[in-house]
C-alpha cells in the first residue's frame, strides 16, 4: 500500500453527553477514493468536520499529509478542500464570480485564478450559466459549482459530504463520472454517503460507520461478499406460512411485512428450486422480488454476525 494521506487514530467526539464518534480508526491511501458509509446521524459529517479542521476531536489523532488537523491546521488547510453537505455558494454572485472570489481567497495569483475559473466552468458544464447568479441555478448546477469551487486551488485531498444527496438519477451519474475523473487525476477523495450503490460505484475502500464505530471496512467486493450478491424476498398472506418458509429456507424474517429475505443467486434454476421447495411443503407465497443488497442488508448482516442468528426486524 502506498503511504496513507489521511490517517485517523482512535478519534472520539461527544456533543454534551452524546457520544457521536467512539474511537474511529482508518487510513486512506494517496490518490484513492474512500467512502464513509452510514445512516442519518451516524457521525459522517462530524468526522468530515474534524478532518477539515472545522471542529476538534475530544481525543485521538487525525493527520492529513502528515500534518495534525488540530495543531497544524494551517498546513492542513493548504492541502484540502471541503464540499459540505449543503451547497456553499454565494447566491448573489454569478457562477464565475464565485470561482474568481474563491480563487483570490485561496491566495492564487490573478492569472491563475482567471485560467482556473475558465477551465472549471468548462469542465463542469457551467459555461452558459457563468454569468447568471447562483440563486437561479438548479440543484444539480449548484452542486457542480460547489465542487468546482472546491477544486480551484488544486487541493490534494477533497472532502465530499453526501455529494449526490438530492440529485436526480442523471445528475447523480454525472457526478459519479466527475468524481472518478478527479481521482484519476491523482486527487485523494474522501466522500460520505448513505447509498451502498454509490460507495460501490466509486470507492476503492469503504468503511461502514454505525453508532460511532467503524463496523466494517473493505473494498466493495469484500462488503458484498459479506452481504451476498442478490436477495430474493418472498411475501406471504399470513404469518404462519411466513414462519414455515423461514424454517424451510432460512434467511431473515420481517414480521411486519410478512416476508422472508434469502441471499441467493438469481439463476432461473435456483428460483425454480426455491419455488418447488415451497410448493412441496404447501407454502404459497403471495409474491416475490429480486433485489440488490442495500445498506440495510449490510447493517442487518453485520449486526446478525454479532448476535449470531437471524435478525428479527420491526
Amino acid at each position, binding site marked *: 500500500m502506498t503511504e496513507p494521506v489521511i490517517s485517523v487514530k482512535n478519534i472520539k467526539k461527544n456533543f454534551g453527553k452524546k457520544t457521536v464518534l467512539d474511537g474511529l480508526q482508518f487510513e486512506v491511501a494517496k490518490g484513492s477514493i474512500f467512502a464513509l458509509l452510514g445512516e442519518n446521524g451516524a457521525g459522517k459529517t462530524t468526522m468530515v468536520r474534524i478532518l477539515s*479542521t472545522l471542529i*476538534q476531536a475530544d481525543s485521538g489523532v487525525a493527520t492529513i499529509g502528515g500534518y495534525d488537523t488540530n495543531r497544524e491546521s*494551517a498546513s492542513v488547510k493548504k492541502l484540502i*478542500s*471541503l464540499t459540505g453537505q*449543503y451547497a*456553499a455558494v454565494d447566491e448573489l454572485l454569478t457562477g464565475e464570480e464565485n470561482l474568481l*472570489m474563491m480563487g483570490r*481567497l*485561496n491566495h492564487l495569483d490573478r492569472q491563475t485564478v482567471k485560467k482556473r475559473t475558465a477551465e472549471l466552468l468548462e469542465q463542469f458544464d457551467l459555461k452558459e450559466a457563468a454569468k447568471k447568479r447562483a440563486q437561479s441555478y438548479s440543484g444539480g448546477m449548484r452542486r457542480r459549482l460547489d465542487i468546482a469551487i472546491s477544486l480551484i486551488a488544486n487541493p490534494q485531498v477533497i472532502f465530499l459530504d453526501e455529494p449526490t444527496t438530492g440529485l436526480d438519477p442523471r445528475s447523480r451519474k454525472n457526478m459519479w463520472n466527475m468524481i472518478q475523473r478527479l481521482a484519476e487525476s491523482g486527487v485523494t477523495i474522501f466522500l460520505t454517503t448513505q447509498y451502498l450503490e454509490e460507495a460501490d460505484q466509486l470507492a476503492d475502500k469503504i468503511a461502514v460507520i454505525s453508532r460511532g464505530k467503524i463496523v466494517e471496512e473493505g473494498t466493495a467486493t469484500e462488503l458484498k461478499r459479506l452481504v451476498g450478491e442478490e436477495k430474493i424476498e418472498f411475501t406471504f398472506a399470513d404469518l404462519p406460512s411466513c414462519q414455515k418458509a423461514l424454517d424451510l429456507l432460512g434467511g431473515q424474517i420481517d414480521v411486519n411485512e410478512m416476508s422472508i429475505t434469502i441471499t441467493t443467486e438469481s439463476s432461473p434454476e435456483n428460483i425454480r428450486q426455491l419455488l418447488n421447495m415451497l410448493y412441496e411443503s404447501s407454502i404459497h407465497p403471495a409474491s416475490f422480488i429480486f433485489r440488490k443488497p442495500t445498506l440495510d442488508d449490510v447493517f442487518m448482516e453485520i449486526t446478525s454476525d454479532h448476535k449470531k442468528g437471524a435478525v428479527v426486524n420491526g
Partner: protein
Amino acid sequence: MGESKWYWAILDGWAMSIRSLKHIFREAESLLMAVGLPVAIMIMFVYVFGGAIQTGTDYVNYVVPGVIITCVGFGSSIIALSVTQDMVGGLFERFRTMPLLPSSLMVGHVFGGFVRNVIATTVAILVAFLIGFRPEAGWLEWLGVIGVLTLFMLSISWVFVVFGLLVKSVEAANAITFPMLFLPYLSSAFVPTETMPSWLHAFAENQPMTPLIETLRGLLLGTPIGHNHWLMIAWFGGLLIVSMIVATFLFKHRKSE
C-alpha cells in the same frame, strides 16, 4: 510564502469587501429600504409631527441629525442579517477551511454596510436640503460631521456583527436587531428630552445616542456641544473596541462547537 500575514489579510479583506459591495447593489430590497426609510421618517416628522413639536428652531434643522443616525442604525442592522445568512449557509464553513484570516469575512460585511450607509446618508441629507434644511456648518464642521458619523457607523456595524454571530437563524437576527432601532427615539433625536417623563428623561439623557446627536447638532447648527463630543467618542470608541473583541471571540467560540 514570502509575503507577510498582513499582506494577505489586506487582500482577503479587500476580496470580501468587493463581495459585500456586489451584495448591497444586488439586494435591491435592502438598499431601497435603507435609503427610503429614513427619508420617509424625515418627511413624516417634519410635515406630520413637526408642527406640534417645539424645539426652539426650525424643526427640520432640529430633526436631521436624528434622522441620519436612525438611517445609519437601520443600514447597519442589515449587517446582522448578512452575517447570520453566511453562518447558517455552508459558506461560512467553507471560508473556515480555507487558509484565510477569518476576520476578513467580518471586515467585508462592515465595509459593505459602510458603503450602504454612505449612500443612504447622502440621499437623506440631500432630501433634507430640499425640504428646507439649512445648517450653519462650515467645511471644518462638515469634516467633523463626517468623522463623527464614520466612528458611529463603524462601531454600530461591529455591534451588529456581534448580533449576527450570536443568533442561530435569520429570523432571530431580525428579532434581536429590532429593539436597537428604537434607541434613537428614546433620545433627543426627535424631541427635546425635557418633554419626557422623568424616568425616561433620565434614560434618554444617559444613553449614547444623545451625546452623539447633540454633537452632530452642535456641528451642524452651532448649538452648544459641551462635553458631548468626548462622551460620544468614549461611548462609540469603547463600543467599537469591545464589539470587535467580542466578535473575534464569538467567531472562535463557534468554531469549537
